């Protein structure tokens, strides 16, 4: 079925990005609307996708396959790189998340008044590459999108960021590039070890492929190649497959982020403008988790099972370390950034469990964190827009003058601290649940992980109390700026709040979609 639906998810924003670039400066006011229209079109696209998606079908759907590069290597082999896009349950959930978050971030971008042409053009480029990452079914294509994402991100932080933007954007790009290099190594090794049997017999030459479907099937491994299972080859004294898995784990772990490769995150978040923080926390971090499942776990399941303990421990450290650090923060955005680290630790804990419950929980947690952290960053943005300040101690008793804001903040904070009936709870509960049921993980790890839930309650409630309760007080210069939410902000926070509630009460909406994919992974 070559409907072009998926490709349009990439091509639409790319075209719009070009259009904005080519429009003369006199059409300045229209950039944001062009961008918004594209985001709405993407939402409609997404709606069609969800409508036509068959949840019980476990493989990729809506596949579009075009030949792209056929590189002849010597006389015996061909390197085939194709343009393949397709989605399964996992990708669909992530695509849905990104389309929603980009839509919200686009509305939030309306408050940006500097160099709009460049901003919206880069923003749309970012939209296209991020979505491309989630729907690519060819490793080479995935990697191109993965790398290309850095370009708009670098400029979006570096130009529209806060005072320390140059440092933050550089740090971000260096960290991510280091991860990319590791992934690149694995990509080449994988492609050189897997053979597309079908085309091999057709061309009478060995055809090396980057197709995910071929890479994930271990029957396609070439005998005697670097990554074969029967006769392991050592790299620095480690089995090649283990080595590659670790490279992938670190590469995607930096993106996730996991402790100790997380320090780019607080800086990038604090400096980035609100909509970019929203995208960064809401979607970009999920690419790390997505990559871990789609690539690391799917291509190296035999290795991954041995690293369950290590991954769980790193997840636990992330949870507690992020939580304690969040407790010490004075800047609201930094606190949210560290809470992100803590919450993404649950994702690692779920991965470490290496069972169906843990994986489902981890994917749910990614989705829910996407909604909730976006909400939190928008909240920080609401205050920053009004006062150009984010210090927690500068605000007291906001509940009295900003009642609607307080209601929405309650949803976001309590969602983040895992109140049942909001989506955060389901993710945390099932990652811990999976971890507890796993045979490879000692019970003490999930038991300590439960502490993370207490910690998040402490730092979030404390902040909530300090900023929103008590008698109203703030610095004199902010006093008149603090007004309740406008309709745009109510719309953004309201949509996310309702989604959080929806997925918290009916988690099966999401579980039904991702469950077949997860079962297939273990099948």
């Amino acid at each position, binding site marked *: 079925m070559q409907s072009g639906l998926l490709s349009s998810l990439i091509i639409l924003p790319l075209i719009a990005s070009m259009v904005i670039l080519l429009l003369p400066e006199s059409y300045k006011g229209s950039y944001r609307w062009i961008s918004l229209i594209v985001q709405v079109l993407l939402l409609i696209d997404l709606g069609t996708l969800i409508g036509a998606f068959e949840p019980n079908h476990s493989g990729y759907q809506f596949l579009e396959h075009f030949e792209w590069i056929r590189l002849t290597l010597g006389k015996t082999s061909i390197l085939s790189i194709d343009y393949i896009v397709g989605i399964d349950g996992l990708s669909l959930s992530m695509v849905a998340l990104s389309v929603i978050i980009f839509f919200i971030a686009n509305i939030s971008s309306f408050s940006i008044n500097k160099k709009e042409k460049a901003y919206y053009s880069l923003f749309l480029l970012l939209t296209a590459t991020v979505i491309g990452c989630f729907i690519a079914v060819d490793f080479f294509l995935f990697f191109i999108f993965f790398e290309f994402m850095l370009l708009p991100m670098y400029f979006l932080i570096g130009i529209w960021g806060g005072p320390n933007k140059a440092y933050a954007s550089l740090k971000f790009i260096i960290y991510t590039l280091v991860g990319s290099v590791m992934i690149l190594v694995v990509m080449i090794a994988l492609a050189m070890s897997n053979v597309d049997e079908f085309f091999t017999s057709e061309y009478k030459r060995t055809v090396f492929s980057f197709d995910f479907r071929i890479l994930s099937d271990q029957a396609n491994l070439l005998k005697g190649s670097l990554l074969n299972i029967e006769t392991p080859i050592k790299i620095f004294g480690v089995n090649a497959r283990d080595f590659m898995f670790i490279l992938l784990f670190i590469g995607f772990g930096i993106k996730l982020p996991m402790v100790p490769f997380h320090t780019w995150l607080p800086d990038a978040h604090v400096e980035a403008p609100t909509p970019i923080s929203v995208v960064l926390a809401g979607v970009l971090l999920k690419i790390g988790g997505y990559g871990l499942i789609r690539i690391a776990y799917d291509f190296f399941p035999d290795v991954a099972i041995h690293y369950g303990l290590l991954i769980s421990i790193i997840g636990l450290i992330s949870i507690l370390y992020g939580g304690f650090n969040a407790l010490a923060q004075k800047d609201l955005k930094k606190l949210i950034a560290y809470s992100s680290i803590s919450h993404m630790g649950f994702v690692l804990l779920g991965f470490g469990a290496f069972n169906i419950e843990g994986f489902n929980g981890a994917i749910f947690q990614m989705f829910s964190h996407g909604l909730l952290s976006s909400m939190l960053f928008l909240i920080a943005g609401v205050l920053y827009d009004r006062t150009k300040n984010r210090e927690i101690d500068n605000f007291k008793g906001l509940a009295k003058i900003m009642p609607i804001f307080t209601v929405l903040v309650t949803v976001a904070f309590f969602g983040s601290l895992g109140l049942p009936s909001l989506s955060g709870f389901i993710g945390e509960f099932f990652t811990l649940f999976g971890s507890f049921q796993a045979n490879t993980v000692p019970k003490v790890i999930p038991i300590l992980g439960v502490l993370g839930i207490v910690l998040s309650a402490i730092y979030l409630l404390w902040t909530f109390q300090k900023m929103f309760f008590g008698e109203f007080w703030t610095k004199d210069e902010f006093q008149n700026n603090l007004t309740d939410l406008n309709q745009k902000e109510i719309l953004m926070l309201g949509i996310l709040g309702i989604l959080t509630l929806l997925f918290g009460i009916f*988690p099966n909406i999401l579980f039904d979609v991702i469950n077949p994919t997860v079962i297939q992974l273990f099948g």
Partner: protein
Amino acid sequence: MNPESIIFYNLFIYLFGFVLLLSLNKSMFKQLSGWISIVISVLGIIFSSSLQGPSTENFNISYNWLHLGETRINFTILIDNQTYFMYILVQVIAFCVKLFSTKYLEHDDGINRYFAFLNLFVFSMLGLVLAGNLLQMYLFWELIGFCSYLLIGFWYTKKAANSAAIKAFLINRMGDAFLMVGIFLLFLIYGNLDFDALIPQNINKNAFGFPFLSSQGLQTLAVLMIFGGVTAKSAQLPLQIWLPDAMEGPTPASALIHAATMVVAGIFLLGRISPIITPDAGLVIALTGALTSVLAAISAVFQYDIKKVLAYSTISQLGFMVAGMGMGAVGASFFHLATHAFFKAGLFLCAGAVINYMHHEQDMRKMGNLILKLPVVFYAYVICAASLMGLPFTSGFLSKDSLLNAAVAFGTKNGLKEIKLLVPVMMGITSFLTSFYMIRQLIMVFFQRQESPVDKIISSTKRTFDGVIKSFQKILNAENESLGEDRLTNFVRNLGMFEVSIIGLTVCSTWFLFSSNPFSFEEVWFLEVFQSEETHFSWIPLAVGMLFILALLISYNTTYEELRRYYLGEYKTGNQRRFYLLAKNHFYIDRIYKRLFFMFVKSGETTNMPMTAGLSDKGLKTRKFEIAPYFQLIETNIVDRLITKISSLVLSLSNYSSKIDDKILDGSVLGISFGLKNLGDKIRKSQSGQIQLYILGMVVIILCIVFIKIIIF
């Protein structure tokens, strides 16, 4: 209607009430929100009364909720006798409380918010009692905690209320963490979270990952973990400290949430899992409950805040119920839960009426003489207090008798030498202390005394009973002196909203709602549906009565002595004072938590922190050990610095490499090019343009070539 749709509509109207009232924030109907929510309650009671009464058949219906691989967790509605009683009880008490609140909060600006929260609470509480599996219960368990947080912190500009709210939520969170681990363990043991499946036969014998523990031991551990959750929600040792502070909320909300319904959720949960409570776990639970009840009763004796006395009394009574559950006396414990809910809610509402009359003064020493001013409240208070003390003709008599009976049976089952014996002994002490502090409170709040601080207090028994008679007459005359009308009509006409709701609860605190025979719990219809104890010790009610008389004698004197000292400004000194402070501050358990908390967080403003509600800052200034800032230090000094070091290393390396690049590689390239250029320059100089020189050069070169040729060949 079938039960399914009844329950659906019933839950829906409360949720609808929550949303509707919350949206009334700026509307003109705001003042009506009390009446709207009363209508909702009435509808709710009508709906639930059409539910089928208790029977041996349980109603059970499941909806597909969660499905992860092999694990299936359904959304199950389970109605058995426990559920049915709680279902009605919660709504009836909520109705009375709402009635009371319409007057109590009539001038409050956030009245719609208050009633919205109350409706959300009733919704969550009903959800909890209907829950058919542990995860579902956990869901509503946290929701009621959330409602409690909202209602304690209802007056959000008050600092004390905020601190109390956050403290309540955090302590409950700790409990929830235990509960969650307990749920995981139970899933490991039983492979299922449905309450129906939690029976000893279903143990999955080979799926344990625990060293050193038999399946019995693991089950004990699981039950104790669940009990950890119960200690927070039902305010048991060592997580009971949030409840006294929770009294910062509006009094009617305290009556509903922190006395009658929410705090008994833990008892309810214990009742649900009672089939799998192992004897070891049961003993721990019973001892914890009994110990909590004694400690809380001691603290209650030394409080001056009218609500704090009742709060400690609640902890103490909850200890009774928990002990009952630990002993396996599910029916008795549950019966006490039901009676306690009514009389304690009644007491709290009376306290609310008193506080309202005193213009939000809560110190009992400043009250007194209210017997004449609030006669109806006084009588209601006496009846409810009698019920709490376990005097005949009240519901408390029956339930306390049955609980103590079970305790004595439990303690003496294997002779008198076991640690089990401590349970009935401690519960006996608690009974005495209960009478003691209730009499003290009655005297302080209601009885007559002379207001002048200088005079010696000389209120005699006679005077007091004069007051009682006068107050009775006053009720009948009730400020309306016109003679033509019937006294009873006057009485009814002059009843306010306060009195009506209080009387409602007081009536429910007497025996006839539960039993036809006021003297024997064996005829309680309530207990018939549970299996009850066979042995019946008839001396227990007599003993309770003796303890009451003893308490009356002692308390009557000491209370007046206490008041005298208060008026004269005398304070206790020495060991006496030390003991007094120890008991009043509930054995400084609070302070331990505060210390613990400070280990993690460093903050300039100590008063505005979680876990510090109800504590002074004295003696806590020297804090040496804080963890969270250290983490931050690690973050900036080690992790980040490491990265910086690496990057600076890379930078300096690149510096060198760029120098090498500059000097050697580029240098050589440049050197070569410069050399060539110089050469070119030199050569250029030779290009003078003189043809003669060129010809000479050519000749020389040709000669050279010729010469070379000659030499070589």
